[in-house]
């Protein structure tokens, strides 16, 4: 994946470049809004990571300009401003996702990977399958090795989101935002309890666990060990 990081703090930019490279993503860095905009205009990137406060041209203007020009590259906005209003403004400007500083690198990585996947035109999949676990999006039925599994509506949506991002790390915050549509801190790790309930329904009694916990990051549905 080719990533452009527009970030004026050199240490942060360097950290991102290094970490993304380790994760196997080629990364360019722009130190201000104007440079970032022209780089995004001339090169094809799979994802843009844009800091909100930038010298010369602020992050939201960069995103707005690109969107007006018809550039649909997924954008993750990074910001120190984190309340609901700031988020709304960021998404309204054309950002696809919004991450508040300070963040965990694993959170950022999971989000840009989810974003790049979303960019691929999603042929309305009616059925997700991971190993012998099958989720039918039309009938809302879930089976494991042909055996039906009874899920609560919320558990169904949790599994649906995990299977849609099968093979990729999904963080707790991503689950909270996408399955529950909550953009706040629930204090306790409520998500863990929900996931472990789901796990007991889909993995219990099977040799090959499909729902894995990724240490320090989140969860992943995948056929086979991590």
């Amino acid at each position, binding site marked *: 994946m080719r990533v452009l990081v527009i970030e004026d703090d050199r240490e942060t930019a360097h950290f991102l470049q290094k970490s993304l490279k380790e994760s196997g993503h080629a990364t360019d860095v722009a130190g201000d809004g104007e440079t970032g905009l022209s780089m995004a205009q001339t090169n094809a990137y799979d994802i843009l990571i844009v800091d909100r406060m930038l010298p010369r041209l602020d992050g939201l203007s960069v995103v707005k300009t690109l969107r007006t020009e018809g550039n649909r590259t997924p954008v993750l906005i990074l910001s120190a401003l*984190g*309340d*609901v*209003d700031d988020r*709304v*403004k960021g998404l309204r400007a054309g950002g696809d996702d919004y991450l*508040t500083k*300070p963040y*965990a690198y694993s959170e950022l990585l999971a989000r840009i990977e989810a974003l790049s996947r979303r960019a691929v035109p999603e042929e309305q999949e009616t059925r997700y399958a991971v190993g012998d676990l099958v989720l039918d999006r039309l009938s809302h039925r879930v089976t494991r090795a042909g055996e039906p599994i009874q899920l609560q509506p*919320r558990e169904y949506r949790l599994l649906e989101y995990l299977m849609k991002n099968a093979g990729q790390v999904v963080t707790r915050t991503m689950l909270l935002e996408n399955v*529950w549509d*909550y*953009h*706040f*801190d*629930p*204090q*306790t790790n*409520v998500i863990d*309890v*929900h996931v472990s*309930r789901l796990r007991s329904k889909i993995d219990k009694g099977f040799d090959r666990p499909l729902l894995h916990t990724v240490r*320090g990051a989140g969860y992943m549905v995948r056929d086979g060990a991590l």
Partner: protein
Amino acid sequence: MTALSDFFLRSMQTQAFRLAAASATVFLLVATMIVGALFWQTNTLLTDHVVAELHREAAELAAEAKAIEPEAFADRIRARSLTAGTSLYLLEDVAGTKRAGNLPALPAEIAGSPTGGVFRYARDGDAPGAKRLAVGIPVPVGPDQRLFIGRDVEAQSELAERIKRTFLWGFGALAVAALIAGLAIGRSVLRRVETINATTRSIMAGDLSRRVPVTGSEDELDELSRNLNGMLDRIEQLMSGLREVSDNIAHDLKTPLNRLRNSAEAALRDPRGGDAYREGLEGAIEKADDLIKTFNALLLIARLEAGVVEESAETFDLGHLVHDVAELYEPVADEAGLALAIETRDGIAIRANRQLIGQAVANLVDNAIKYSAEAAGGAGMRDTTVSVKVTAAADGPAEISVADRGPGIEAKDRDRALRRFVRLEKSRTRPGTGLGLSLVAAVARLHNGAVRLEDNDPGLRVVVTLPLPQGA
């Protein structure tokens, strides 16, 4: 002397003195105009009367002159002159020789005038140089003689003069009195303002506990003093609030920062090396995350208190949201061995920030579960239900109530528990930021709602009231 002149100078700079002086001046001007008009009126009235009388006599004499011989006429004039009183007569022949009358000579002022006028003359027996005021007119008495009659108006003139003097003295005294009153008022006002200034100066110098004295006269200055004192009370309250806030922030951030530092240091010193480093770093990240949570909560409360979240209000079903959020905690309550009773109804539409209301409800349910779980762990409790309710009266506000069977909050601490940034001593040792309730209160305030803490007997019930949109 300098003190006196200094006092005058300062007095003259006071608003009260200026007002007094200005009003005295205006009063004097108007009074002068009125007196002037009165004086002029009186004068004209008196003079007019005299002139009318003169004309009547002139007509009489003119008729007489035609009827009788000049000599006989002269005798008549002589006779009149003897019993004249204030009347003045002068009969001359064409050559200008006096033939009869009590006027010594034709007054120069009106010698050539056909209509007459005011003149001065000297009476026989008067002190030399003393001249009396009179009015006179010529009377047509034929071609051979000239008659001039007049009236002495010295008495009227003196009366007018006296009136003028009386008025002048009177108004002069009034003006002086007004100025003195102005000065006195100015002085007392100045003194009280000076007291206020002295107090405010010492407050500015840092003594925030000082207050402006109130005289009890209930006048505007007392009101000013009261308002100043009220303002100072508020400022002092805010200042102590701010001090408390910064103390709490320092405590809330420094303690975990210190723990973070300690764990890094401990890992570095650990002789096991690699594994210890990894554990230490993982611990450090965990502690940093806790710090970030606390910091975010503090920041959010501060921003809510400033009322800056405005763009993201939306209309949503409150019962639905509360039910949803509470449900998020159901497995957690379950694991803690608690029953979570959710009792909401649909159709309560509210206009608010959905995320913030969600956060508030999450905080309340999270707290309720934590405290109930703790209490349940201690003694085998019979009732461990955490109940979450949403109600709305027909025209009243919506109410979200979250009740637990935990230790509750003592009545005396309840007010404090809701104050911004305040954490009760007991909550400091528990996991989590401990800012949950402060945040709920801030969210409620932002939406013009309120939070009250009640006794759930045993346990705590937190009730959040939120106003419903008008006309809904």
